């Protein structure tokens, strides 16, 4: 495992990302990761806040269009996150903080699919709000904020 992490870290790409003085290497990838975070967690927050009772005048049906926007943010972060991991694989791949962050993301994605199915997936009933959708919204908001907590904490390990 350690050998694999080391070979990732010392690969051409890993070395370039870590050591290149170019503004297009590490700084650009980190910027993309931050933009993706804002788009994904922010878009998610709009839907969650609405489901939790803020902005009730906003009809839920058109908010389904937020999902493609959120997925763009998600994939920008998946790809930029993978790049950041490769550049620092032996540290990130061996710390519990990173594993916790990955776990939070996996649970968060599962909950987001469940949330979408609960609110938008009822073929006959149209868009529905239930105690379940509210609970999923609260859990989703909390989990993505926890993903930020662990992500930020990684700067200190």
């Amino acid at each position, binding site marked *: 495992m350690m050998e694999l992490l080391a070979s990732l870290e010392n690969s051409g790409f890993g070395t370039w990302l870590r050591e290149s003085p170019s503004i297009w290497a590490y*700084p650009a990838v980190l910027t993309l990761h931050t933009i993706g975070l804002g788009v994904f967690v922010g878009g998610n927050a709009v839907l969650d806040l609405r489901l939790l009772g803020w902005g009730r005048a*906003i009809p839920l049906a058109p908010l389904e269009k937020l999902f493609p926007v959120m997925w763009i943010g998600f994939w920008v972060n998946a790809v930029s996150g993978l790049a950041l991991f490769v550049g620092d694989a032996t540290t990130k791949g061996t710390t519990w903080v990173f594993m916790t962050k990955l776990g939070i993301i996996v649970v968060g994605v599962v909950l987001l699919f469940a949330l979408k199915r609960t609110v938008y997936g009822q073929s006959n009933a149209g868009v529905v709000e239930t105690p379940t959708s509210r609970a999923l919204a609260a859990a989703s908001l909390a989990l993505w904020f926890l993903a930020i907590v662990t992500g930020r*904490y990684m700067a200190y390990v």
Partner: protein
Amino acid sequence: MNETLDLFAAWLRGTSISEAIRVAPWLWPLCEILHFFGLSLLIGIAGFFDLRLLGFMKRVPISAAWTLMPWAKFGFGLAALTGVTFFIGAPDQYIDNPAFYGKVFFLIVANLNAVYFEALYRRQVEARALDGGGPIAVKVIAVVSIVSWFFVIYWGRMLPFIGNAF
């Protein structure tokens, strides 16, 4: 000019509040976390409103979209408060840093743009209920908002790379 700024930074760094921010072992990471919470609330909700102004999600009344704006303002407040904490704690990292001035410039643009919209266009646009239209100026405002917040993040991220801030 630079000397005056450096003197100011040195004075600020010497104050007891600046030292307290640097010495507390948990405060800086906590502020970083809150800074990013604020960032995502602001980008998500302001971005949602900007997209609506640009004609996306037309079935959402603009007046309804606006009702989430207190959360964007709360996010901005959180980011601003923690940002000021960083500046007071380590003013020397920012005072000679070109990225800091890039960030401040776009913060000013983004905020003036938002204030301008709220003062001159908000009620007019809200009155147009569902048609999704609006003066072209409003679409320009939405684009300026998205672009300037993007550059706030960009220059914020550049702080440690162009200058020396952590």
